[in-house]
């Protein structure tokens, strides 16, 4: 009853073009962000940090990145794992080569490096489309992971071939390494996620976003109105990779702390992120969050119930989860190709009219 547009008149185009045109949405988002920044840090503990909040935040960022490329620009990529690896290794090289460098800058630079690599592997998109491109992105996935495995310079010639995040401080508080308090790592990630989610929202509703969607919906017509396919696709590739690179850097520096490329950034991660945006909603920033949370937490929940609750063996549960995930993907593509975000939109549509639907 309270969620409605009526009475919320727009008197200027500026008002009509706000990020969240509906008043209640604005209030809701503001409250969530305020809660995340002001309340959660006081309640957080190790379990919530490592098992829920950090991974969901980081996967959301990766999902936003892939959504920019796939959901908005229509270019399917199976190279997400490889690009996350680039972000992780770039951050490792930066922070070990320049220990004094502020960690925020390290992460941003890593995103930048990943963007460059993204452009390089995005070049084939100018000639090929659809699943041809999807296959081409597999090249980046396998080649990059192999590269980080085989070239010792990337892991600073360490004997194990692993990379480990050294302890780095921001304003005297450890953000990486084993001594980092949960609230610090959480806030560090939260800043990136909130800032870049808003940036993504801005980009996708403006000139760039429209050029991406134009390429996605009808590339020939996009060209006819002056969108250069080269520029649109490569900008989508680079910005998408930038996000994925940041996610990879955070995944390594803050969340895992130690990384072995084949395991941490394998092809299964590429699929995971793709599934997040399919289930969450292609072409929706909100959907990226919902999808990331759903795809990460659903298996955790099932595992908790079946393994810890009923005492089933973990591998049977793992197979069951595979089945459920595969089934859900097909279900969503058949029934609701716009994902959970669309269901949410429909619910809002209904709420808007409630209690007088006719």
């Amino acid at each position, binding site marked *: 009853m309270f969620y409605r547009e009526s009475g919320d008149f727009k008197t200027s185009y500026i008002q009509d073009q706000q990020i969240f045109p509906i008043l209640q949405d604005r209030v809701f988002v503001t409250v969530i962000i305020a809660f995340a920044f002001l309340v959660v840090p006081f309640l957080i503990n190790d379990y919530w940090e490592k098992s829920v909040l950090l991974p969901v935040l980081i996967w959301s960022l990766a999902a936003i990145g892939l959504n920019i490329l796939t959901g908005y620009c*229509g270019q*399917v990529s199976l190279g997400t794992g490889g690009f996350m690896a680039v972000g992780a290794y770039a951050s490792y090289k930066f922070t070990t080569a320049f220990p004094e460098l502020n960690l925020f800058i390290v992460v941003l630079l890593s995103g930048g490096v990943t963007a460059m690599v993204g452009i390089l592997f995005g*070049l*084939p998109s100018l*000639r*090929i489309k*659809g*699943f*041809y491109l*999807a*296959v*081409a992105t*597999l*090249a980046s*996935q*396998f*080649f990059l*992971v*192999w590269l980080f*495995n*085989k*070239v010792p310079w990337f892991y600073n010639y360490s004997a194990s071939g692993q990379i480990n995040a050294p302890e780095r401080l921001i304003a005297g508080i450890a953000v990486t390494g084993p001594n980092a308090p949960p609230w610090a790592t959480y806030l560090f990630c939260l800043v990136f996620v909130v800032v870049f989610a808003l940036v993504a929202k801005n980009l996708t509703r403006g000139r760039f976003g429209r050029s991406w969607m134009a390429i996605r919906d009808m590339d*020939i017509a996009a060209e006819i109105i002056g969108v250069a396919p080269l520029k649109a696709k490569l900008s989508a590739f680079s910005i998408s990779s930038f996000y994925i690179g940041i996610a990879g850097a955070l995944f390594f520096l803050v969340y895992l702390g130690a990384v072995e490329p084949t395991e941490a950034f394998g*092809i299964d991660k590429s*699929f995971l992120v*793709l*599934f997040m945006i*399919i289930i969450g909603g292609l072409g929706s920033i909100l959907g990226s969050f919902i999808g990331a949370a759903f795809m990460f937490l659903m298996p955790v929940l099932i595992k908790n119930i079946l393994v810890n609750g009923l005492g*089933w*063996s973990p*591998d*049977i549960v793992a*197979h*069951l*989860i*595979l*089945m*459920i*995930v*595969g*089934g*859900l*993907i*097909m279900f969503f*593509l*058949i029934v609701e*190709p716009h994902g959970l975000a669309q269901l949410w939109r429909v619910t809002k549509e209904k709420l808007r009219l409630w209690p007088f639907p006719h």
Partner: protein
Amino acid sequence: MTPDFLNTIEVILNGLMAGVMYSLVALGFVLIFKASGIFNYAQGVMALFAALTLVGFQTGQIPFAHLVNEIFGTQIHHWGPGMNNLLAILLTILVMIVFAWLVEKLVLQHIVNQEPIILFMATIGLAFFMEGIGDLMWGADLKTLDVGIPSGGSFWWEDVTRTWVSEGHEYYGMYIDLLDVWAAGIAVLLVTVLTLFSQYTKTGRALRAVADDHQAALTVGISLRSIWVIVWSIAGIVALVAGIMWGSKSGVQFSLSLIALKALPVLILGGFTSIPGAIIGGLIIGVGEKLFEFWIGPLVGGATENWFAYVLALFFLMFRPQGLFGERIIERV
């Protein structure tokens, strides 16, 4: 001939054999793509699933035994001593046909009008689903598969090649796995049968008609849906053959489904619509990656087989997007 030269030949031969395996999987892709325009990512998992089912029948496993035990606390696993190879293979074929029918009924029918890329993603979902259900049905442990195909190195070939080396060099002869030779033979047979089938039977003609033009095929009274069931069944049988070959070679396990990924670059080389393309593409990739690993591998730390095929396909795409044998795509405005 110097041992180096002979070694290179050995690498090429082994590459050809590996290529045959890739071609077998790629063949399934091409069949489905031609008939329904669907890029079936699940083809590799179908091979895994078929192989698992075959082993299950052979050894007399009870499907879903693990799951049932978990839920009801029972201790069931086998219903008997198993059955002979032929019966097991026939039953597996039956399962693949039922599977094809179910896929058509539950999935394809509902998304037929979507964009190709959506269909592609749906088959990724299908792949995950099948992998899960395959493991639940038969267990995820590594299984050995033996349907009586000879395997192991060929001593005869070793003896023959040993004499080829020039004087004064030490050489032990070439190694070639009999199983690979058999696989190549069976692949040739399979392609021949498929070609004959599509050329000389009524169903085959209908298949080609559908591949050419869906709408036109519909207007002459061909049922698209039954054609799809047939095509998916054939692809299932091809998957079974691939599964038997790979399974006999390296055991039936999860990694079997990864060969599906290798088949993708094969398709890019060969073109999505060409059966000869799939075969030649497979051979090129097989030989290419073995030679690359042999020559360049040692310089860069090895394991280049992980990515060589994809990177080759990538370069290929830049210059000839339609593949070696695919039709040139003229985009109409």
